[in-house]
């Protein structure tokens, strides 16, 4: 068997892929699908991609339900950057409201949830499936979740 090679192409500048979505539940699926196809083309494993789908879905759902809540014609802005083996996804909303539940460090308290209490688990789920995550907010502007997943 003989193998053939093409000359290596120069790497383009790391311009991001940007996605803007209506701030309506359901559209988080478009973000999830787009990030998943980029990750698949980058060579991530299926289980990593499944986790990334969950992380992106939770981040965009939070942007819609919390960050943009009550803003008419709001949008969610998703910025996808591919650099080497790292995939960075930033999810931005337009409002600013302080994050108030500890950024998902604690495992959701299932006992309390079973008592009917509303325990959030989105941030915690995000934390389980990415290598790096950071929540930042700019007063008067919006919140941003920055998630990084590395290949291999």
């Amino acid at each position, binding site marked *: 068997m003989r193998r053939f090679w093409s000359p290596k192409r120069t790497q383009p500048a790391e311009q991001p892929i940007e996605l803007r979505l209506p701030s309506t539940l359901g*559209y988080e699926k478009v973000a999830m699908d787009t990030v998943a196809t980029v990750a698949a083309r980058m060579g991530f494993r299926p289980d990593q991609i*499944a986790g990334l*789908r*969950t992380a992106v879905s939770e981040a965009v*759902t939070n942007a819609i339900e919390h960050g943009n809540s009550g803003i008419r014609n709001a949008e969610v802005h998703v910025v996808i950057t591919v650099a080497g083996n790292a995939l960075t996804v930033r999810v931005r909303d337009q409002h600013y409201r302080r994050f108030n539940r500890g950024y998902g460090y604690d*495992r959701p308290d*299932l006992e309390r*949830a*079973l008592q009917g209490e509303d325990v959030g688990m989105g941030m915690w789920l995000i934390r*389980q499936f990415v290598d790096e995550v950071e929540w930042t907010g700019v007063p008067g502007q919006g919140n941003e979740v920055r998630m990084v997943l590395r290949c291999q």
Partner: protein
Amino acid sequence: MAFLDDTLEVTSRQHGKVTVIDIKGDVTTFADAKISEAYTTATEAGAQQLVLNFHHSNYINSAGIAILIRIVTSCGRNGQKLAMSGLNEHFQKIFRMVGLSQYADIYETEEQAVAALSS
């Protein structure tokens, strides 16, 4: 917008004494009414063993998990046995991570779940 519409199908059927609730599609906040109604109807009919059977559910988010937690709570109150089947690996993992698998046994197939509840 077709892809925002309710893409969930919830149906239920009997398998001997076991009630199987089939859940096909996205399990998100929009699934609440259908899943809760299926559970309530089964309970009113006297169901003691229930299987939530997921098919092709490629998308379950935290709001969907919250619905399932409420079903677990109700099953506890009503003294019903609950099992789940048909979840793909990713969601089996999430259900274990969250601790849901302590309250409802998780099986690969519907047959295994029905057999376990019937014995």
